């Protein structure tokens, strides 16, 4: 390949989203098979310390821009800097992690630079000097091979599809500061505030996910506090159910997921939803508790390495995808699992 590979790190206040390092990993794969030097760009507040860190992953150049106009993420000033650095380096490939910011900036940079965008790819290959990307379409029901006929090829890498490269602390270097492109008075979007979510472990990056479905709400042994109407009592029951799931999750350092039925019924916030209209996840271990396995749910978790299903209905479709299945009541099985993990992991 002619031209450089430019990787853009996504971070929040100096803390890189893990998928950013996977994008660097994807760049190393490309460089190994197709040649080309890797440059990394970090934008925003606290970008310099991050830019210093990237050399340990074997990249040749790093750039950062911590101009005050970039303190908070905003698409237009960010994309303008990405485009200017890409032009200066004559980058042939731009790589972003598939995050909200990554996907948005990739789309913008592609238009700005006259390239083409290939979001959320799971595999990259170089053939005849061209990049052939594989990406899931139709919620992973199919795979597509895509090529970009224009330069640069702008790619976002699916979370957990590429490996974080090995670090070698002996590699070091000095990042280069670059200037912002758009002055504040030309930026129409103003940031008025920020609220952090309290979800804890991020679903998309999680190694282990324990999910609950509509089945979390029907424990007959619980009696809700007096004075609740039927709907309140159902939600109360479901919350006890998610507490039980949460205990197992806490023990395993896992994130808590949910089906849409559980989210729509108000048992748990939407941030936890796994599936076609929720988060697409691919943890090493996915434990589905009281989830039937509707096609839209499977779309979000089918690429998990090991799937465990606990459901009282032996005909539940989730069992078809599961490595291990238990036909049983989650109120009996999940606490027993927590106890057993507790013993075996010595925690």
């Amino acid at each position, binding site marked *: 390949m002619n031209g450089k590979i430019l990787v853009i790190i996504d971070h929040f206040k100096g803390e890189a989203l893990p998928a950013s390092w996977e994008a660097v990993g994807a760049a190393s794969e490309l460089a190994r098979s197709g040649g080309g030097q890797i440059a990394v760009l970090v934008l925003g507040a606290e970008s310099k310390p991050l830019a210093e860190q990237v050399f340990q992953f074997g990249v040749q150049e790093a750039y950062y821009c911590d101009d005050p106009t970039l303190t908070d*993420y905003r698409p237009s000033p960010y994309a303008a800097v990405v485009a200017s650095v890409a032009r200066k380096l004559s980058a042939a490939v731009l790589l972003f992690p598939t995050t909200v910011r990554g996907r948005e900036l990739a789309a913008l940079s592609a238009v700005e630079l006259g390239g083409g965008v290939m979001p959320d790819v799971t595999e990259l290959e170089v053939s005849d000097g061209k990049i052939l990307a594989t990406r899931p379409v139709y919620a992973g029901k199919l795979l597509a091979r895509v090529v970009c006929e224009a330069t640069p090829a702008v790619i976002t890498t699916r979370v957990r599809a590429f490996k974080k490269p090995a670090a070698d602390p002996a590699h070091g270097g000095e990042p280069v500061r670059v200037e912002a492109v758009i002055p504040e008075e030309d930026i129409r979007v103003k940031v008025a505030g920020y609220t952090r979510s309290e979800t804890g472990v991020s679903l998309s990056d999680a190694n282990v996910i324990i999910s609950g479905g509509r089945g979390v709400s029907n424990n007959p042994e619980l009696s809700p506090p007096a004075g609740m109407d039927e709907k309140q009592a159902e939600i109360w029951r479901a919350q006890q159910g998610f507490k039980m799931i949460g205990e197992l999750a806490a023990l395993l350092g896992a994130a808590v997921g949910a089906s849409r039925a559980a989210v729509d019924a108000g048992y748990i916030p939407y941030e936890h939803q796994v599936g076609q209209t929720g988060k697409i996840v691919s943890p090493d271990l996915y434990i589905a508790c009281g989830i039937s396995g509707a096609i839209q749910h499977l779309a979000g978790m089918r690429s998990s390495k090991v799937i465990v299903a606990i459901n009282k209905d032996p005909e539940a479709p989730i069992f078809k995808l599961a490595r291990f299945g238990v036909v049983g009541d989650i109120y009996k099985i999940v606490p027993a699992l927590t106890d057993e993990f507790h013993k075996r992991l010595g925690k």
Partner: protein
Amino acid sequence: MNIVVCVKQVPDSAAKVVVEGGRVSWGDAPLVLNPWDEYAVEAALLLQEAAGGDVTVLSVGGESAKEALKTALAMGCSQAILISDPALDAADSQAIARVLCAAIKKVGGVEAAFFGRQAIDGDMGVTGVQTAHLLGWPMLGLAARVEFENGKLRVERSFEEGRQIVECQLPAALSISKDIGEPRYPSFMGIRKASRAEIPTWDLAALGIEAPVSVVRWPEVFNPPVREVKTEMIEGGSPQEIAEKLVAKILEEKVL
């Protein structure tokens, strides 16, 4: 405020989609309004209810896409326009964005353009922001809340780690996240109105543009390799016994 919502028609999310003879097939599953675009329609209607004006719904697609437009009309949109041209058959996201940009300009007087999060066929999630860029409008992506006050939009954008509150003057483009609230069902009156609606079709000539160049090609679409999962059912006389066996099996997989 005059609003445009851009929607796509896609195979139903429950469809079994496979490649047969090199072509994508979804059997007899229906084509529907892209589920993410229902949220965009909902958000646009809420804003219109608060600020007045019209909601125009646009779709680039074949003749069948009129059905998706009718769903949006039945939900309460004021008018619908189909953009259809054989030259757009293999259009990539940027080409669609150029067409939408031209169409939004032709509608005229538009102050806000709404998009879905992504279309559930190609799963790209880029067309909205690309259209915004071509229009020269700021993008307020993945809006979880939209308010309009004193001529200003105030939007909560969803990111991995939380929500950013941003403000901007019109015109602006938005994409809508599920947090906005469940989309309304078409009303009976709406369905009757939609079924009688005449939906105009614009081709590229009507938009006054040449066929935009597509640079991303899909040379091959294929069925994912079948994953051989041998399901092992764990049984036992008591929950404890089941848990012992299952935990042992999970630990053997070395995923923890």
